[in-house]
């Protein structure tokens, strides 16, 4: 091909570099978040030892006590409840949509799950306060109704779209021959689902659950509205407590930038960031393992 610099080929090169630039820019965002938020957070350890920070549940910034164990327990507790309640329901919904629902019903159900994802998290939190918290107060005799259970319930609804859409995509992507072979051997539909399809879809289902965990642990507004916001270790499911995210929202506005208290809140967001990065790496490893098979 003759090497001729025409306007067309210059244009071609220019746009190519433009697209590379965009991709590099997007990749740099996560690094700058780690850099800026990390720097701010690590400043905490000039005044607090990491050991105290991670293993103490005493959070009294006025008296110089910065232990975030309560918030970690709160975040893990709400996430756990959400997964226990939401994952089986979502998975059942995905199996129904993928394998049982007639096509016309499925075409209705798909937008329905997307609508779940479209409802703002403050609205979930609002319904949580107005309904869930009241019901919990009445049925358990708890003083306020706020706590892990209320937050877990709200989160269980919020993770449904994540679980459903990823699991269903995985189920539908399985080769038809799996199902055909199983049915040809005389298996019932349920035996086929339980013994063939679900085991084959396991990597995808695990991905769905891990991403749902990431969503639950990072959810802020809905949790903040129903958790009760008191820095007390959650000894029961229905006493007010706090999570990493809810405490950051509550206290960030009242603390001067650069104070140890403020830095500690940034360090809590670093913990959140590291948890979500760990989860995404877990997903990647799972995918690679699935491909290797």
């Amino acid at each position, binding site marked *: 091909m003759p090497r001729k610099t025409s306007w*067309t080929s210059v*244009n*071609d090169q220019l*746009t*190519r570099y433009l*697209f590379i*630039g*965009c*991709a590099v*820019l*997007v*990749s*740099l*965002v*996560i690094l700058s*978040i780690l850099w*800026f*938020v990390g720097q701010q957070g690590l400043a905490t350890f000039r005044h607090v030892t990491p050991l105290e920070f991670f293993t103490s549940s005493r959070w009294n910034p006025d008296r110089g006590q910065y232990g975030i164990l309560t918030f970690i327990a709160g975040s893990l507790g709400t996430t756990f409840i959400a997964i226990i309640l939401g994952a089986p*329901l979502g998975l*059942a*919904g995905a199996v*129904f949509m993928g394998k*049982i*629902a007639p096509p016309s019903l499925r075409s209705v159900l798909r937008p*329905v*799950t997307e*609508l779940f*994802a*479209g409802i*703002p*998290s*403050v*609205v979930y*939190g*609002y*319904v949580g306060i107005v*309904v869930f918290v009241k019901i919990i107060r009445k049925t358990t005799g708890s003083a306020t109704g706020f706590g892990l259970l209320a937050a877990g319930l709200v989160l269980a609804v919020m993770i449904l779209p994540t679980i*459903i859409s990823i699991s269903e995509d995985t189920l539908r992507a399985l080769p038809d021959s799996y199902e055909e072979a199983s049915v040809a051997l005389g*298996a*019932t539909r*349920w035996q086929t*689902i339980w013994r063939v399809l679900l085991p084959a879809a396991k990597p995808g289902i695990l991905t769905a659950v891990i991403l749902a965990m*990431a969503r639950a642990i*990072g*959810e*802020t*507004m809905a949790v903040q*509205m129903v958790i009760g916001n008191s820095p007390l270790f959650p000894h029961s499911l229905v006493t007010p407590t706090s999570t990493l*995210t809810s405490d*950051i*929202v509550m206290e960030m*506005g009242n603390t001067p*930038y650069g104070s140890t208290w403020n830095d500690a809140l*940034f360090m809590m*967001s670093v913990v*959140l*960031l590291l948890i*979500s*990065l760990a989860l*995404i790496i877990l997903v990647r490893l799972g995918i690679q393992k699935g491909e290797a098979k």
Partner: protein
Amino acid sequence: MKAKQTDALATLLLWLAALVIVGILAWFLFFILGRGLPVLNPQFLTGPNGVGGQFFNSFYILFLSLVFSLPVGVGAGIYLAEYAPKNKLTDVMRLSTESLATVPSIVLGLFGMIIFVNVFKLGFTILGGAATLALLNLPVLVRVTEESLRTVPASYREASLALGATMWQTLRKVILPTALPGLVTGTTLVAGRALGETAILIFTAGMSVSRHLFDLRLTAPGETLAVHLYAVQANPLPGTHAGRVANGTAALLVLVALAFNLLLALPSRWLQHRLSGKRG
């Protein structure tokens, strides 16, 4: 015959699960709209304690965030789908995009606060809010772009390149037009999600609204509808009918979410069907 009974039972339970899921959503909509719709009238937007400013800010910030994120996100998606070689660097790019997608929005909010409030000393502004919100949109736009470009058959590219078109010409005249319905659907879903975002905006756009309705200044504080619902719920000011405002705002947010999902996502899906049906 035990297997048949188990099968029937399982089928029943799965139907039940689907009913529960749809039931939760239906009850949710019914509940929010039932409480909020009676409150909604023109006064609710323009009257004293009206949320007209917040309503405007929601869409203004959304629009600006898309202006910031759409070119970069689509550009990066094009690179990953069409140009990127299979190597370590591309893997790193994908990993960082996926990581960005899972960063909790509160962390993005704090990052935006460091940059716009503390480093640039802008205070809580529409600009800071929109730019930080753009970070939430970016990874989803990259993925949506990449996915819709991948659905374009390889033969289209080959045919165009074989005719002597450059890569850019192929992209502009062949690939992008074919992938457009997917891009539109994806962008709609991104926009719907950004419109309801709260945690990012509390610490970047702030919780107060300009005194002037339809304030276009980028440095004005920009409380949105979703942030407003949080604010009236957290600090109900006496004499402002906070309960009514909360009910109405929640209903308005749900209506907007419904509108985005139904009015925009469905026609573009229909377009997708039609285009693929006619060309396929």
